[in-house]
């Protein structure tokens, strides 16, 4: 039994499913009764007893082989390769036909053995089990058809073919007469015919029908679940426990000893405590719903491809086709700069259109576009340009301010250089290049008085003192103090008295300016005092009290540019020893003893009492033309010939607080209103711009400057527009004098 034992062990030990093993076992031992197979099943479970069972089985097998039973072989075949059964049966028949019916028990058994070896050569992997009655091996038997023998037996003797007496006729007769012909099979190896027994025929039938070879085998037996999840009260086997299961195992002891030693030596580290943190976690558990929504919102869809247009057409309208020059230009352009990435082409019909050579290119570029170009949501800054403009109140809310031209004071025949309003606001004086000074009634534009002088009138100034009625007029090198005789008669006569009551001081100082009393016709015209200057007087301005009078004689290199006259004492002072540049205009501080001198670039503020320079304002513009001091005294505006108006806040800085560039041409005159927060500027472009200029008492609050109105009316004559502006002392009205010889009132 040794040789057969090993293959079984080799075949089955690793099979996981015990059922299969059992079945294979069944197939091996076809003829065993059920009880036996059942035992084998149990034996397969029990390791300890398996050897013995195997041995038994092999022994039985061997016995069968020794018996040489044909049936057994056929059965084995049929079990292993059920599909070949028909062919096998035919071949058996052929053999029997060719060799005729020759009955010998020995040969029959031989042939059966041969069959099994031929068909199932590797059933057992030892060559010992081969059918070796004919030793020629597995060769086509046709090779022996010309020989009398059919092969050699184990002893090397020839196996002779059975004497074939049968011819076709015998065959036919045999077929007709032999009732067992249908069950006769020819064995090629031995050349004998074989008659199948009833059992074998039955087996063939059963196999043909696809049934089991064993009649008694019920393939649909109810399955017995040996290993259920339930714990049974009985053990699977009835075997008593081994002794060794009660005594400690030495091997185990040794093994444990080794482990203990290893632990002591530190070779084995205690098992690391299990990581308590869960290995997997909910990635989105902590996620804020808003961020999810935000991510959804932030989804940036891929840019859409441009839809094809006429240019892509195979037959584009001719205007889309490029001309030769355009083609040249297109070719010379960088691919990035090209407006279209292809040349529009015309084909007569769709059939003539070639394959699009750039297709892959285009797809590729599109893909690059889609995933290589980083897309970013551009937060569009929805800034209304209006919002960037500083919030200024609407001009409508800043009323009152002059809006329309109301009156035109006509009479002058040449440009009106200077105007001045009486402190009461009832009269207006204007000096013109036509060598006249005119006095107007403000409310009716009536010229009440005209005084002729002997030169173009450069500047007029009404004395701000309401208790006197004096107007200073400058023309040529002369300043005339004139009593217009308007308004209150008492005041007029009081003024005259004041002037005539002057007594010459004992020691008469030598003065650069000559004071003379007007006499004769001049006196009748209202002239009272005449001041002769060494140089041409350009501007004359009064101090707020009406006693001091400053005049400007612009001259670049002389120190005698500004003189201050005191009317009551008929004295003249030259406050400056040095020339600091061409003086353009001067002004008194309305409240404090300060004096503003505007040269071409700077405005210097002098303290008249301390006789020192207090401030120097940098106008930052080319040639200051005019200057006005805010009635509060802390703000100054300067108009310049380079179209700018600079607002200085004296408390803030020596640089302009605001630069207004509203005029198109040089500014000629600027003025503040006495009470209303208004200032105006007149320019050569013929317009007067009125601005709201609010000065707050709060030092922290900067002045609010809002341009409110552009007043037009003056016609531009000889490139000159508005030459002077003046505000009405009490009403929000502005007067402007122009080169067109008119004075206009805007209300």
């Amino acid at each position: 039994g040794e040789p057969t034992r090993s293959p079984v062990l080799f075949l089955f030990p690793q099979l996981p499913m015990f059922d299969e093993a059992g079945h294979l076992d069944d197939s091996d031992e076809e003829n065993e009764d059920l009880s036996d197979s059942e035992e084998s099943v149990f034996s397969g479970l029990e390791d300890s007893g398996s050897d013995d069972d195997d041995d038994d089985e092999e022994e039985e097998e061997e016995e069968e082989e020794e018996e040489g039973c044909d049936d057994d072989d056929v059965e084995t075949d049929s079990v292993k390769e059920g599909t070949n059964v028909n062919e096998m049966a035919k071949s058996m028949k052929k053999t029997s036909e060719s060799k005729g019916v020759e009955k010998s028990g020995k040969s029959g058994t031989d042939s059966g053995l041969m069959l099994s070896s031929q068909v199932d050569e590797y059933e057992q992997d030892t060559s010992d089990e081969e059918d070796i009655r004919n030793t020629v091996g597995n060769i086509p038997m046709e090779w022996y058809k010309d020989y009398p023998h059919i092969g050699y037996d184990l002893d090397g003797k020839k196996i002779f073919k059975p004497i074939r007496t049968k011819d076709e006729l015998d065959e036919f007769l045999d077929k007709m007469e032999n009732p067992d012909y249908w069950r006769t099979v020819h064995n090629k190896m031995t050349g004998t015919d074989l008659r199948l027994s009833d059992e074998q025929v039955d087996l063939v039938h059963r196999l043909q029908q696809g049934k089991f070879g064993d009649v008694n085998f019920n393939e649909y037996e109810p399955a017995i679940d040996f290993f259920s999840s339930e714990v049974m009260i009985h053990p699977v086997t009835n075997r008593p426990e081994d002794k060794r299961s009660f005594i400690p195992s030495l091997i185990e002891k040794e093994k444990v000893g080794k482990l203990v030693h290893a632990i002591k030596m530190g070779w084995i580290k205690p098992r690391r405590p299990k990581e308590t943190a869960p290995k997997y976690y909910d990635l989105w558990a902590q996620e804020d719903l808003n961020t999810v929504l935000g991510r959804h919102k932030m989804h940036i869809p891929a840019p859409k491809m441009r839809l094809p247009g006429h240019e892509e057409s195979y037959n584009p309208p001719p205007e889309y086709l490029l001309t030769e020059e355009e083609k040249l230009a297109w070719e010379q352009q960088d691919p990035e700069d090209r407006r279209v990435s292809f040349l529009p082409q015309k084909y007569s019909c769709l059939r003539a259109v070639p394959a699009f050579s750039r297709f892959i290119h285009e797809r590729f570029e599109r893909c690059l576009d889609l995933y290589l170009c980083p897309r970013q949501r551009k937060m569009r800054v929805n800034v209304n340009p209006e919002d960037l403009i500083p919030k200024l109140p609407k001009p409508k809310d800043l009323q009152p301010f002059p809006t329309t031209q109301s009156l035109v004071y006509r009479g002058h025949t040449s440009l009106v250089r200077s105007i001045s309003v009486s402190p009461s606001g009832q009269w207006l004086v204007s000096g013109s290049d036509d060598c006249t000074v005119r006095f107007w009634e403000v409310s009716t534009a009536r010229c009440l008085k005209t005084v002729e002088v002997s030169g173009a009138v450069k500047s007029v100034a009404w004395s701000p003192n309401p208790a006197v009625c004096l107007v200073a007029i400058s023309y040529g090198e002369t300043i005339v103090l004139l009593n217009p005789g308007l308004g209150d008669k008492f005041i007029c006569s009081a003024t005259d008295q004041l002037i005539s009551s002057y007594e010459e001081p004992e020691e008469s100082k030598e003065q650069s300016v000559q004071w003379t009393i007007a006499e004769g016709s001049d006196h009748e015209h209202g002239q009272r005092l005449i001041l002769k200057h060494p140089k041409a007087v350009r501007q004359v301005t009064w101090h707020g009290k009406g006693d001091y009078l400053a005049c400007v004689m612009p001259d670049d290199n002389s120190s005698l540019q500004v003189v201050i006259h005191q009317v009551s004492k008929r004295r003249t002072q030259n406050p400056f020893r040095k020339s600091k540049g061409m003086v353009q205009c001067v002004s008194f501080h309305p409240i404090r003893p300060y004096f503003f001198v505007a040269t071409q670039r700077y405005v210097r503020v002098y303290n008249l009492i301390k006789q020192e320079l207090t401030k120097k304002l940098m106008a930052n513009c080319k040639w200051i033309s005019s200057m006005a001091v805010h009635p509060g005294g802390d703000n100054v505006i300067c108009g310049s010939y380079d179209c700018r108006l600079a607002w200085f806040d004296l408390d803030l800085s020596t640089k302009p607080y605001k630069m207004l560039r509203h005029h198109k041409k040089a500014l000629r005159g600027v003025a503040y209103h006495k009470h209303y927060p208004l200032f105006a500027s007149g320019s050569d472009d013929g317009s007067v711009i009125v601005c709201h200029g609010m000065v707050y008492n709060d030092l922290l609050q900067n002045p609010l400057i809002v341009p409110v109105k552009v007043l037009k009316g003056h016609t531009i004559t000889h490139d000159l527009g508005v030459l002077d502006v003046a505000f009405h002392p009490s009403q929000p009205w502005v007067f402007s004098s122009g080169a067109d010889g008119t004075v206009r009132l805007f209300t």
Partner: protein
Amino acid sequence: MSQLQARFFTENKKYAIDDVPFSIPAASEVADLSNVINKLLEARIADHKHVEFDFLVRGQFLRSSLASHMDTENISTEEVVEIEYVQKFTAPQPEECIMHDDWISSVEADSEWILTGSYDKTARIWSLEGKAVMTMAGHTDVVKDVAWVKRDGLSSLLLTASLDQTVLLWEWNSEQNKVKARHCCRGHAGSVDTIVVDPSRTKLCFISLAELKCLKTVFSLSVPTEEEDEVEEPNRPRKKQKTEQLGLTRTPLMTLSGHNEAVSAVLWTDAEELCSASWDHTIRLWDVETGEQKSMLTGSKVFNCISYSPLCRRLASGSTDRHVRLWDPRSKDGSLVLLSLTSHTGWVTAVRWSPSNQHQLVSGSFDNIVKLWDIRSCKAPLYDLAAHEDRVLCADWTDSGLILSGGADNKLYTYRYSAYVSDAGA
């Protein structure tokens, strides 16, 4: 075309028709309606002559088609519309153009004579036909205002105010055509711009002198009494008094101060109440007995002129912002503007209520136009009298239906405006 139900009525019995509703086309205009009324009248009265009518829907003159008017006025077209009709005002007929030597600063006319003050320092009396009757030269400066005081028989009393700070009272004998300066009133430290005489001309004559000067006591009032013996009243003595050769000098009875700026116009609303308008944007009402301010109306612009109508008891003011505004002087809420008449394009320098019609007034402006208004049609004036070539400085309206206006073009225009006035009513 849609139809409207309308009922016509009038206050003039002469043209009354049956008080029944008529169905009239909604698109019909004034002329169509006028024809309808005329047809109806012809049916009633045999000898009816064609008369042009004007129509008022809820106190507003109809100036467009009936439908559009009712649309703009938000009047329901479902109900019967009450339409009042009045005889149409005929346009003022220009009568005379009286030339002066200089600007005409003021005009005042009565039924016989026209008194004008001029910038040539004289005041003149003209006949209604435009014949120069008398020239009063005495002022040393521009005559700013003139006023009739009294006219009994042949002798008349009149006042002239001038820039030379005096007001002269003249006695003029129309038969002998002699004039004599009776009194010289002083009291102002500035030009006298306006004088008004109180309604009870016989006994008391108030002269109000407005000066354009910003003093604390801006508004002063001098009150000479008109008595037969012309004895100077023992008024409050003034420090400064000059005897003038032109007559005896009077001094003010009372000075009303309160205005912050120049006072531009003054008038009597009744015997005890004085109203003044000023450049300080206010109209103030004064009690003359006590000399105290009674109430104040505040505007937003300088007032140039005011006029008061005793018929409708409204004040009309002309401002520098080209509006003519109507005020109710009795209203407690002083700033209430009842109505704004906007059509002028320059300063309104003269307004004058019609002495006989409570709805009408004239206004003169620096835009050279005199406008005739009916406050029932406030959107546009009734008539524009565009005769002047320069600024209009003064305007007047006499009881006899004469409109006068003088301006800076040295011309005084007179217009006859009598059509409606003669119709004895309204």
